């Protein structure tokens, strides 16, 4: 049984505090859903756990099986068993998917993986996710559609066999069929290896396919409510406003910059 423990986590980016005291415990065999309005810290939480250098942990702790995660480099966190399926997976030209996966696997092993074992594992995973058979020879995520990139994240998870899997909006960019495939593969892996899952998503449809054991609502950098799978249904039906009212919170809404209309266009619009 593995345990990821987050205590009083405060995270900032460029001196702006995003997470304001997160407490969360995720064990093997648990599925935690993290929901909340955009721009309130969900992706920041996952990125901070994984060690993205643009985020500064200013207070609190993260431990994994009693090991201090904050003292580890990014690659070390991966090798101890943490995995993050990213919201926007990077394209890396010049590095094939198979070369990349082999290097990542070998980084965890004393002896390099045998060629036959590797090829069998990779081909099996590609087939499970119903991806194109030429995936192995293509450059990492280059030319992939959004959905293919997300499925490639799951493929990497299958190959690397982590203990705690964090998925940042894995459902965005997936059509309903691809979503079912991903959920099926995840559930299989969950049943087989009893991994711990932390899933950030906005939509009930994914949680219908993979029901969480715990649901948390993250607003203004704090977990304001926790419950079971029933909370997902409530959010899907009623949104987040009822939470703000119940708890007396002002929800920070993500504001995108507004394109300005030039003066002449405005004048024409009002007939001036």
């Amino acid at each position, binding site marked *: 049984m593995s345990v990821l423990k987050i205590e009083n986590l405060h995270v900032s980016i460029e001196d702006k505090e995003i997470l304001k005291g997160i407490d969360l415990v995720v064990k093997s065999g648990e599925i935690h859903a993290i929901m909340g309005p955009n721009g309130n810290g969900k992706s920041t939480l996952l990125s901070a756990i*994984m*060690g*993205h*250098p643009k985020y500064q942990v200013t207070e609190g702790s993260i431990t994994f099986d009693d090991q201090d995660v904050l003292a580890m*480099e*990014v*690659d070390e*966190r*991966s*090798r101890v068993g943490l995995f*993050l399926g*990213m919201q926007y*997976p*990077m394209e*890396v030209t010049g*590095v094939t998917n198979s070369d*990349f996966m082999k*290097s*990542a696997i070998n*980084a*965890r092993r004393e002896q390099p993986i045998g060629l036959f074992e590797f090829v069998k594992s990779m081909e099996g995973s590609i087939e499970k996710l119903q991806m194109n058979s030429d995936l192995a020879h293509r450059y990492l995520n280059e030319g992939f559609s959004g959905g293919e990139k997300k499925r490639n994240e799951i493929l*990497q998870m299958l190959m*690397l066999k982590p203990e705690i899997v964090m998925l940042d909006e894995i459902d965005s960019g997936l059509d309903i069929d691809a979503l079912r495939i991903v959920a099926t593969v995840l559930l299989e892996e969950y049943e087989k290896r009893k991994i711990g899952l932390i899933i950030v998503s906005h939509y009930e449809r994914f949680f219908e396919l993979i029901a969480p054991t715990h649901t948390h609502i993250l607003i203004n950098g704090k977990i304001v409510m926790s419950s079971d799978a029933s909370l997902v249904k409530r959010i899907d039906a009623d949104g987040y406003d009822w939470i703000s009212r119940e708890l007396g919170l002002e929800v920070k809404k993500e504001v995108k910059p507004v394109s300005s209309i030039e003066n002449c266009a405005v004048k024409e619009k009002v007939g001036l």
Partner: protein
Amino acid sequence: MARESVEFNIQANEIVQCADNTQTVLNLSVNDTLDISVELVENTSGILVINVEGIGRLNLVLNCLEGSSFDYLWVNKSDTSLVVNETVYLGKQASLRTNYGEMTSGEHEKTTVFHMIGERSVVDVRSASITFNKMSWDMSVEHEAKYTEANLRNYAIGLENSEFVLKVIGHILNGNSGSQTHQTSRVLNVSDKITAVVYPELLIDENDVAASHACTMGQPDPEQVYYLQARGLPEREALS
């Protein structure tokens, strides 16, 4: 006709003449100071390879006589410290295609000057440097005749804690119309502890010439490095 290959191990001052249609390999071993003069004979062609090792000062003069056409490969194998003064003369219609390999962990200082003294001489330079420690290189082309052409392409990778300084000058002297001097320098820094400086310079004292320079310096995309590290690759491997 197959090209013959000859090899010389040189530890003392020497004058070498490269034979026609021959691959001439010079293994230079520097111990304090070494003076070498190499002549590429008129209207001959071939390959010149210079491998250098040792510690000290190397003064190398390469005379590319009229009509000679050679490929020149320079490989620095010294992991200590070399000061190299390299002077190349290109006569009328001489053509030299040079490739420099500077990939050692030593501390080196190099000055390379190409004197294009004959009309319609051509020099094409490509260099690949991987700096583990310290490298300082002043490279210049002096266009001293009409219709001379120089293309200098320098590529470098700076590794952790290294220092790399590259100065590249293309100088077209007055009276040498119809000449062209072009230079490209690209440096990739794989660490933020590196010092890398490139000085591209064009000194043009004539009309009716062509000259250009391009220089870029950059680091790997930190988001890409993070992505690779997030799959367990140590930083050094992710950067490579």
